[in-house]
């Protein structure tokens, strides 16, 4: 039920408007002057105000100005209804923020038509404000969910690196937005073996984060995991080969399951012998930087996880010796493009890693990221940047 406040010091004007507007089923309030008008407007918050100008105590112009200053009443449409019919009077009224100006003596039909129009406009404006509020709240909730997903993801990332004689490890992780699609880990499997892996799930945001969590669960160090199997004979466990790990992931994560695919490089290092066994599903090739400065790219690989064994996976072997370094990374590094859309690329990456052979492993990681930043010339990375490294010390 829409409410209208009628303000006029002349009782005959008020009576006439009351008779006209009652026929259209509005709830009406009346005021004789600006003071009464303000009191009623602020307490009843009518949907429209019909305002005379010439009134004692506080005239219509003053009243309109005050209505527009008050936060609670400033959006209520005001229609001036006045015998002051000069153009300058109308301009003044409209400049004070009135929605309309009708001159007296007024035509009944005109008053009703304009009242209806402005009530409708006001209703629409309020709906818009409400819809906007709703939208903002939904967005806020989305942002909160995104932040929560990021928190979960961060909790999956290692906070420490393993401490193993003769080996040092390092990693860098820079997600591109609140919730990244990359996950990685380095940890001992047993006394002699260490596993290193990076997973890169397609897409970003909450859907990608959910898949990375699911994958991380499969690959967790203890409990129900695919990276170690129980067996009946001593030592009662068997380390799952990289090939088998990748095959099992492919079984468990067909693309139809989450409409996501992911790449993974999964590597098991025997710390006693320096032997590496690895499997790669669509991921950038790991890099060995020899003590001599020579590079070996570990190129054995298959396609991404999720396509259902369309192309068979393979397992590769490599050997590291004291003085060698190994780097795993995600395509956020090589596919980082600068303002001119030029990619950083493998060549630059290889050059950087060889160049930094002389500085410490940790410093080499920082150096690489600095070089990336300089290359980007201030542009933000388009994708997560993950770097996992080890050095077989002398």
């Amino acid at each position, binding site marked *: 039920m829409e409410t209208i406040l009628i303000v006029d010091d*002349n*009782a*005959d*004007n008020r*009576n*006439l408007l009351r*008779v006209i507007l009652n*026929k259209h089923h509005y709830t009406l309030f009346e005021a004789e002057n600006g003071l009464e008008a303000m009191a009623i407007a602020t307490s009843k918050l009518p949907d429209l105000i019909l305002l005379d100008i*010439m009134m004692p105590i506080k005239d219509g112009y003053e009243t309109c100005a005050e209505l527009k200053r008050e936060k609670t009443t400033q959006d209520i449409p005001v229609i001036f209804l*006045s*015998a*002051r019919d000069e153009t300058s009077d109308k301009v003044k009224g409209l400049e004070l923020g009135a929605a309309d100006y009708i001159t*007296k*003596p*007024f035509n*009944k039909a005109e008053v009703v038509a304009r009242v209806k129009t402005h009530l409708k406009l006001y209703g629409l404006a309020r709906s818009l404000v409400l819809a906007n509020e709703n939208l903002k709240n939904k967005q806020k909730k989305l942002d909160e969910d995104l932040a929560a997903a990021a928190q979960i993801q961060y909790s999956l990332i290692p906070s420490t690196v393993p401490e193993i004689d003769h080996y040092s490890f390092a990693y860098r992780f820079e997600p591109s937005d609140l919730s990244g699609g990359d996950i990685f880990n380095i940890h001992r499997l047993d006394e002699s073996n260490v596993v290193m892996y990076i997973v890169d799930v397609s897409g970003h945001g909450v859907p990608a984060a959910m898949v990375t969590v699911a994958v991380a669960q499969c690959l967790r160090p203890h409990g129900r995991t695919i990276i170690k199997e129980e067996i009946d004979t001593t030592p009662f466990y068997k380390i799952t080969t990289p090939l088998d790990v990748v095959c099992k992931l492919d079984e468990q994560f067909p693309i139809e399951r989450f409409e996501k695919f992911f790449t993974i490089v999964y590597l098991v290092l025997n710390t006693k012998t320096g032997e590496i066994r690895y499997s790669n599903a669509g991921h950038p090739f790991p890099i060995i930087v020899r003590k001599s400065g020579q590079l070996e790219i570990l190129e054995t690989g298959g396609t991404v996880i999720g396509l259902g064994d369309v192309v068979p996976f393979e397992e590769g072997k490599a050997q590291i010796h004291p003085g060698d370094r190994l780097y795993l990374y995600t395509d956020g590094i090589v596919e980082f493009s600068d303002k001119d859309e030029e990619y950083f690329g493998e060549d630059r990456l290889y050059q950087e890693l060889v160049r930094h052979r002389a500085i410490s492993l940790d410093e080499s990681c920082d150096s690489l990221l600095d070089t990336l930043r300089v290359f980007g010339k201030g542009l933000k990375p388009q994708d997560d940047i993950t770097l996992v490294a080890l050095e077989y010390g002398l």
Partner: protein
Amino acid sequence: MSSVTLYIESDLEELIPGFMQNREKDVRDLRIALANNDMDEVALLGHSLKGVGGGYGFDFVTEMGREIEEASKTGQNVLVEQLIEQLATMLDNITIIYR
């Protein structure tokens, strides 16, 4: 003078007695204001008549109000007096038909 016939909407019938009383008061107030040479008050009363008449179907009240306001603002006191008396006479000689 002969009476003026006004055709007025039946919705307004119950307001008319009050309206007539107020107009008669306006005439009394106009005479007093003029006697006091309070031309601002005369203009205000004329302005008010201008605004209220037409809505009720009393177009002549609007007309007279406009002329009184004009005349008082231009210092034509004699004309104002004539207009007031003309208004009074007209108010006394109307026939209303509701429809």
